[in-house]
């Protein structure tokens, strides 16, 4: 049974540009779900609809069986962490965190107990009296998280919370967020454009494109089995070739024959493969083979990346640094049938 449901959500800005087009999403209780996509795909808009900052033109948002579409933000009881943290500059850490509890008119002792407790969970006990301007990005981030969590929200919403932190801190913080989220068992929506961040933290990922969810699945499935060309491109499948089904095999326009392990329905299919999954064909292989000329070579440290020009277009191929191919030489590429994934175009 879904805990949080978005059903046929339409959002339009200025009556013209449609940002969300009949978006559907179901999240189970206690899950951490990421909304992943390029900028402008509508992921932040989706979060703002859930938060209550935007009222959708049509569609229903419900939580735990209750329709909340028209309930104003301050009555929803959701915790939100903003990209800019949005701490109250005129209040110290303690008062920032206590703000939501004061709004709920709890008595002083209860407030004190809850604030101290959450500060402890977030590792902030020693910073009670500090003001936001006196803290580092990572500490502010934790204050924002504590402030959102202390009200015991029914839903936690995170809007690119890690994008203002440096790389190392980002990895620590996402582990921290996951730890706290699991500990409190709170249903969470997480907006990000960073796929590594998203895969590492999420139970499920919704990849968004132009106002709709292209694929909603576990991180593993998204990474290994993208369903559409857009998803594949977004998560690093660089090579695409149009394939037509002929019996048990697939053929390209030029007539090269491919076999593929996975299956997919649909009229317009493409095969896709990551640069690092392409191998060099041996003498015996005759299927799933493309012949091409080596073009630009780029050194990536552990490997070289080559542009290979084939009859099916340009292919990006990664090969270990020990294996070197000169520009202009001819190579035969082998696309293993377990790694060649079918997607809808």
């Amino acid at each position, binding site marked *: 049974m879904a805990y949080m449901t978005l059903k046929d959500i339409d959002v339009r800005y200025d009556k013209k540009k449609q940002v969300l087009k009949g978006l559907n999403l179901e999240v189970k209780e206690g899950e951490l779900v990421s909304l992943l996509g390029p900028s402008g795909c509508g992921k932040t808009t989706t979060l703002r609809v859930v938060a209550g900052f935007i009222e959708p033109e049509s569609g229903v948002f419900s939580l735990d069986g209750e329709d909340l579409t028209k309930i104003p933000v301050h009555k929803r009881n959701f915790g939100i962490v*903003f990209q*800019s943290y*949005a*701490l*109250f*500059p005129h209040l110290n850490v303690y008062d920032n965190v206590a703000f939501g509890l004061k*709004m709920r008119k709890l008595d002083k002792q209860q407030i004190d107990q809850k604030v101290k407790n959450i500060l402890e969970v977030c590792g902030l006990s020693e910073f009670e009296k500090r003001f936001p301007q006196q803290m580092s990005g990572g500490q502010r981030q934790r204050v924002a998280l504590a402030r959102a969590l202390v009200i015991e929200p029914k839903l936690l919403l995170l809007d690119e919370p890690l994008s203002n932190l440096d790389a190392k801190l980002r990895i620590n913080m996402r582990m921290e967020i996951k730890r706290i989220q699991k500990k409190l068992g709170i249903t969470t929506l997480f907006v990000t454009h960073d796929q590594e961040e998203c895969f590492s933290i999420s139970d499920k990922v919704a990849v968004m494109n132009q106002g709709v969810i292209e694929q909603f699945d576990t991180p593993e499935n998204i990474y290994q089995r993208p369903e559409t060309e857009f998803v594949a491109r977004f998560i690093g499948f660089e090579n695409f070739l149009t394939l037509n089904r002929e019996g048990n095999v697939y053929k390209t326009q030029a007539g090269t024959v491919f076999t593929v392990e996975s299956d997919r329905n649909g009229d317009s299919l493409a095969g896709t493969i990551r640069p690092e999954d392409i191998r060099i064909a041996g003498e015996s292989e005759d299927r799933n083979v493309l012949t091409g000329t080596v073009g630009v070579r780029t050194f990536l440290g552990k490997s070289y990346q080559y542009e290979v020009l084939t009859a099916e277009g340009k292919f990006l191929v990664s090969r270990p640094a020990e294996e070197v191919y000169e520009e202009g030489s001819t190579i035969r590429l082998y696309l293993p049938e377990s790694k060649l994934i079918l997607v809808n175009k």
Partner: protein
Amino acid sequence: MRKNKMLTVFAVLVFGFLILPLIIITVTAFGKGSAITFPIESFSVKWFVKVFTTKSFRISFLTSLEIAMLATVIALLVGIPAAYALARSGLKGKNLIKSVFLSPTIVPGIVIGFVLYQFLVLTLRVPVFMGLLAGHFMVTLPYVIRVVGSSLEQFDFSTEEAAWSLGCGKLRAFFRVVLPNITSGISAAFMLAFINSFNNIPVSMFLSGPGVSTFPATLMNYIEYNYDPTVSAVSVLLMAVTVLMMVIVDKTLGIAALAK
């Protein structure tokens, strides 16, 4: 090095040009003779005493303080919500509205004075004090919208959204989160508006009426018939109030707050 010397010379010249007249006026205010002379022959504060013992000056000084205070407070009450609305809304004609609000700073004061005279005094026959107050409100409002507006531009509105999400209604969030973070802008707006109202001549000249006049307007009238050091003394008092305000701004926020 030579360049620096030249710069110093220019700076001294410019400051001298700006400040010397003020110093001369201040000095003449303390003269004993009944004509304005410089340098003065002997020291006396009798002209200051005369200002405060002359009924028209005393009353107009209080009127000016009262008008400046009331006009500024009303301008803040109207201007802060207006500035907030302009900063927050995605209204289409936003820039046009902004320009309209700021137009009194661009349109010559004498035009505003005349228009208000025509409209408030001749057509509507508004009581003199009310007319003056309305005129000064118009003069001060743009400063409030401008200064508070720039303060709001630096305010991160997601902070306000955060307050909403924590269970704070919109009105309460405005008072508890937005206002405390734009206090420096509000104080700066207060000072600027107050000073501008207190020193304003063109609008006051048109709207002053029998028995009600502002301090600078009374001074203008006085100069027409008299030319004794009382004029200097009044000028010094005007400067003193302005300088006092500036000192308060500087002590509380720093002069830079006005330049924002």
